[in-house]
């Protein structure tokens, strides 16, 4: 009986104020239940603006392999569907966690202007080491690249801050096979690893083919191949060219990417210095 009384006292002693009131984040169970799937692919052969929206804070995992042969041609199946088999496994592969963050408090926030139609800016890691952030915005017309900045204001390798005078359109909605566009980004008074930098980047984008893409963890039925070629010319002279092949899918965004080595200009390159594949 005495033990029951002691337990009872312990219970009654708990009748105190709530010590852990969640000030910042109210409890919204109904909202959580209503979330469901935020975006549902309609498989209409093109990617509209709402199918390539950034989901701030939602992480995506990529398998990252280096110096790897890639098959850009794929094969055409009997039903006429092109199939790219990128489902191979690599021995030395790393997992890269990527998530978008709203550009508000970062040291470089004030240097980037709004998108042409006022869409909010967000940052995603630019390199595999996540030392650089690429600043984008999204609106009904496109996905815009505003520039690149080092994540830390004063990294050991020196500060990088490359701001385009006008944002570069990296996706033009609706994104569909058979479209191509060019964009030019001009940089003045920039910094590259602590050194002054100015120049001009010319981007050539081509969305050319659709088909099925096999990846290690998932298969997407309507991947859209988008090729990009960027030629960066410094004000001091000299230029650098990079080509890249990406695959996009409705709602998932970029599901695979292969980047060629410096100054490789063949869009059908077969040796990639880096391959990223969406993973679960």
């Amino acid at each position: 009986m005495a033990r029951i009384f002691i337990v009872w006292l312990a219970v009654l002693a708990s009748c105190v104020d709530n010590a852990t009131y969640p000030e910042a984040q109210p409890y919204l169970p109904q909202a959580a239940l209503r979330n469901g799937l935020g975006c549902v692919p309609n498989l209409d052969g093109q990617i509209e603006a709402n199918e390539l929206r950034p989901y701030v804070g939602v992480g995506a995992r990529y398998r990252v392999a280096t110096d790897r042969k890639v098959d850009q041609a794929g094969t055409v199946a009997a039903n006429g569907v092109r199939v790219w088999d990128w489902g191979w496994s690599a021995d030395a592969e790393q997992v890269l966690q990527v998530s978008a963050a709203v550009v508000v408090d970062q040291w470089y926030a004030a240097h980037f202007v709004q998108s042409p139609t006022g869409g909010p800016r967000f940052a995603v890691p630019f390199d595999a080491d996540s030392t650089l952030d690429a600043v984008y915005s999204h609106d009904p017309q496109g996905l815009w690249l505003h520039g690149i900045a080092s994540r830390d204001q004063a990294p050991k390798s020196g500060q990088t801050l490359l701001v385009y005078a006008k944002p570069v359109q990296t996706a033009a909605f609706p994104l569909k096979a058979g479209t191509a566009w060019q964009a030019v980004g001009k940089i003045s008074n920039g910094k590259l690893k602590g050194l002054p930098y100015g120049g001009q980047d010319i981007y050539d984008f081509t969305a050319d083919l659709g088909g099925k893409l096999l990846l290690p963890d998932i298969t997407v039925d309507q991947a859209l191949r988008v090729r990009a070629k960027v030629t960066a010319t410094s004000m001091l002279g000299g230029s650098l060219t990079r080509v890249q092949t990406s695959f996009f899918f409705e709602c998932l965004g970029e599901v695979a990417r292969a980047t060629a080595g410096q100054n490789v200009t063949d869009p059908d390159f077969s040796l990639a210095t880096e391959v990223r594949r969406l993973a679960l």
Partner: protein
Amino acid sequence: MILRPRWTALVAFVCGAAIVRAVPAIAADAAPPVQLVPLPQAGLVDMTQGLDGTPTKALNWQASFRTRSELLHNLDLDRGLDPTGEPLYPVPPATATGQMLTHADLRLRTDFTLQTAKGGGAVHMRLDWFDNLALGSRPAGPPAAATGQQSPTNLATLRRAYGVIALPFGALALGRMNAHWGLGMVAHGGDGLDTDRGDASDRVAFATPLAGHIWAVSYDWSASGPQALRPDRTRTVDLEPSDDVKSLTIAVLNVRLPLARERQLRAEKTTVEYGAYAATRWQNRDVPSSWASAQPPLTLTSADWVTRGMQVYAGDVWARAAGPWGHIEVEGLYLTGRFEQISLLAGVQVTAPVDVRQWSAVMQSRFGAAGDGWSFGVDGGAASGDSAAGVASQDAAAKFAKPGTIAGAQVDPPRDTLLSEFRMHPDFRVDRILFRELYGAVADAAYFRPHLRRTWAQFGAGSLYFELAAVQSWALAQASAPGGQRSLGLELDPTLTYASRDGIVAQVQYAALLPQAGLDNPAQGLTARAAQLVRLLLRWEF
């Protein structure tokens, strides 16, 4: 008429409506009505209810009106926010130090049985009016000036509507019928005093007595997928048969009618009953955009259908022995199967299939007098789990649970492709706070529940009993508990119930959860603190 003797025999063997209706009167003399154990296999063998051969057309009805009032204190356990930024339970948002939540609701349950003139057929219907309607939740006009309440949008919930036909060789039932098996661990009809849901299956079922057992087979339209309007704009048609979820169950039972059990009891004999079923459920394709999307599309195209390839098998055994010494009841389930494709996105296939392997077992017992006097018992059970954090979320699009959370997705392909957590039915209640309120059901956990009861069979115009249960709970996997430790908590659940002979039941429930390390919040260095609950139930039976 020639068939009548055979049919009457089947009805008597299975469970005739007249006999079922006679039970409350008998039980009122022996024990409080609320102690009535529902038929263990409702939906498969009680389908003949109402087919008692009454030679006149009849409408029978039963009704119960229930009100519940609750005080809930510190159900977030003062253990801070989990990694998703939410407390374990809602907290009062306007008062920073608030600990108390309140609730009151009501429900009017009506059951109708229409019998054909010769008693060879019957139709049953259950309508729950104002189903768990929160009192004061729909004030007419500004709250401060409200002088009335608006009618709820969903005035009534159709729980059951099915017809039964007597055949020379058995009974056939078709419609939306209750589904209950054994202790209600897997399928629960929701007939209890304090239950909220109740399973119902859109089913065709056939049962027949053979070799001293009841054999039953049923086919369920578990889900028929998107429907389209026909050209007449009146009825719908199932758009795509391959997206249907179908279930097939075969059961065999040896059960006694409540009256027969009562007779055995009075003769001081032990009654042994048992049953088993094997079931399978399958689905070839799915349309997740129609049920899992925040904004379901207005039109569906072939692209919306995704491959599912689901095939699941379940086997369940149940047994009960009851006599003057008390009763003991056990149930066990094993479930296995595979989802060939788990993607919810059209046009995306996940490479790794997900396997399902789950089990669960429960036991309930009572020893001692069923009527006046003391009795005690020990209950226990476990539901399989896995090392994934938390328990399964009810949100289909939930992300893989983070350590420290109480719920989330339990598979994470390709790293975790085994769905091994079993979730008992939410209406299968073993406690009042931990599993009922915080977890939603027993899942990935084990519990041990000794209980003691004192019954006063003759108390004024009814009977009174007091029960005290202590429930110690553990997570089966350490990582499943939000605190990362197996011990979840000790809960004390005293109950005082008065049941009058004219069908009024009043019950006061109290619960105190003394949380243990498994509910702490080590990430924030917070120790979970006790939670309490008081609930008052009133039910009128008609």
